[in-house]
């Protein structure tokens, strides 16, 4: 393999990692604050894809603008879902069976709602730039991938800024690490959880829109990405945003480079294998490596 091929693969992996991270942070924030594994995340990824698709097909709204619009729309959907369903789950420091079943059920409902509305035909978002290929010297890549990567990085950057520079962000990070300490200093746990859930769903919707710019989709779209998001947040240590970025990069590199040795149809197996490997070798994720020295006495 030539150096150019290698570089092309690395760049492809990097660009993929961006959107992988974007689709995973929503799950991480929900898990971190509420200790709920949001199995319905896949359903919101799917809805996000159709949201952007419909805006483009009906109103010729640019998919990128659609993704930006997905943030507020899905944020409010998230608030509503929290108010109707999630707040009724008894709070716990561990993921409970109740929450898993509820959110799995919600996923099924969303999926079938999708079939009801859009049928089972595959859709894709095709814009004039979809097939445009950028050529920089010997390196070439689809422009849309770069755009998606940029949007993903910008949204994650925005989230990081909110988490580190605002009182709400402080509350979110505090609840992720120790919720009782949060209550002592005056954090309203339920209110923060509601907003965090909204943010998580907002990211799911927007990430779904980004994925729809890259792949074709149907109402069961999201399942394979849910698995990937799982792998990424397990690799990342469940509660760490830096870990998510690294987890996304590891998975993207593994998947991208696997084409050198494996037929493309085996690609989903990469995520499964990584998940098993991570659980056996790094149960605390890559974040566990640097958190070891942060243990509280």
């Amino acid at each position, binding site marked *: 393999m030539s150096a150019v091929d290698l570089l092309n693969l690395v760049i492809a992996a990097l660009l993929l990692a961006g959107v992988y991270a974007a689709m995973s942070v929503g799950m991480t924030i929900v898990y971190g604050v509420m200790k709920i594994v949001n199995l319905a995340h896949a359903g919101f990824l799917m809805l996000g894809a159709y949201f952007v698709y419909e805006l483009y097909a009906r109103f010729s709204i640019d998919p990128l603008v659609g993704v930006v619009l997905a943030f507020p729309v899905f944020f409010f959907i998230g608030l509503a879902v929290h108010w109707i369903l999630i707040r009724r789950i008894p709070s716990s420091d561990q993921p409970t069976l109740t929450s898993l079943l509820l959110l799995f059920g919600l996923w099924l409902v969303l999926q079938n709602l999708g079939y009801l509305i859009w049928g089972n035909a595959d859709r894709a978002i095709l814009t004039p730039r979809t097939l445009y290929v950028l050529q920089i010297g010997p390196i070439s890549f689809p422009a849309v991938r770069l755009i998606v990567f940029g949007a993903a990085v910008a949204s994650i950057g925005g989230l990081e800024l909110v988490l580190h520079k605002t009182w709400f962000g402080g509350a979110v990070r505090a609840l992720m690490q120790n919720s009782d*300490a949060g209550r002592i*200093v005056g954090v309203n746990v339920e209110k923060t959880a509601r907003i965090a859930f909204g943010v998580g769903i907002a990211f799911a919707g927007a990430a779904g829109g980004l994925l729809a710019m890259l792949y074709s989709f149907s109402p069961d779209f999201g399942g394979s990405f849910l698995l990937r998001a799982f792998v990424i947040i397990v690799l990342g240590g469940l509660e760490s945003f830096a870990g998510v970025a690294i987890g996304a990069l590891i998975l993207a590199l593994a998947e991208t480079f696997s084409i050198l040795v494996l037929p493309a149809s085996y690609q989903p197996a990469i995520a499964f294998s990584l998940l098993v490997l991570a659980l056996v070798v790094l149960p605390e994720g890559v974040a566990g490596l640097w958190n070891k*020295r942060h243990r*509280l*006495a």
Partner: protein
Amino acid sequence: MGNRQDLNRLLEVANLELAYETVQVVWGVNLKVSRGQVVSIIGPNGAGKTTTLKALAGLIPVRKGRIIFDGQDVTSEPAHLRVRHHLCLVPEGRQLWARMTVEENLLMGAFSPPLRAKAHQNLNRIYELFPQLKERSKQACGTLSGGEQQMCAIGRGFMAEPLLLILDEPSLGLAPILVEQVFQMISRIAAEGVTILLAAQNANQALQVAQYGYVMEAGRVALEGVSDELRASDHVRRAYLGVSN
């Protein structure tokens, strides 16, 4: 006379009964703390000290009884609103956010909206009182030593401009020299005019720093009194100060 006493009373706990699920652990506890005082609760592990303090902070629901703080009934007020009365708990085991920096931990102490405007002013005051924390301000809390963590936890409580600072086992698990340091810190905060309610298994130091003390045993107040009297009492001497007659 009675009226004047009422004005001077910061905290009054009456007939407090607390339980975890179905297991009752506190049975009719009465406590009184006057403004400007340091009051200690001593007693063995499992006596209900921590449970009582958690209930004061609103972390455990009150089954029976009342908690009056600064003239207001806060018995059923949710935990996150109590800090607005300037009632602050420094919990057992410190409960810091290990992956946040010292400064972030301290600033979170002023999370409650009415406190935010003065957050940085209060932060500087803490740095003046405890220069060690300033040196470590950009470090993740999890990397601090036990004594520094305790200092940070007390500092976080101090950020809420406490009328009452509740300290639960501030010296637990610390080396003797650090225990000394922590109690010096408590004296310094008391000298700032902050009322302190302190629970500790270390009866000797807890009673030294306090003016008044309670002895809790098996979920009840077994004994109370001015701390010098308590220290002189046979029961306390034998059970808590390790003095045999």
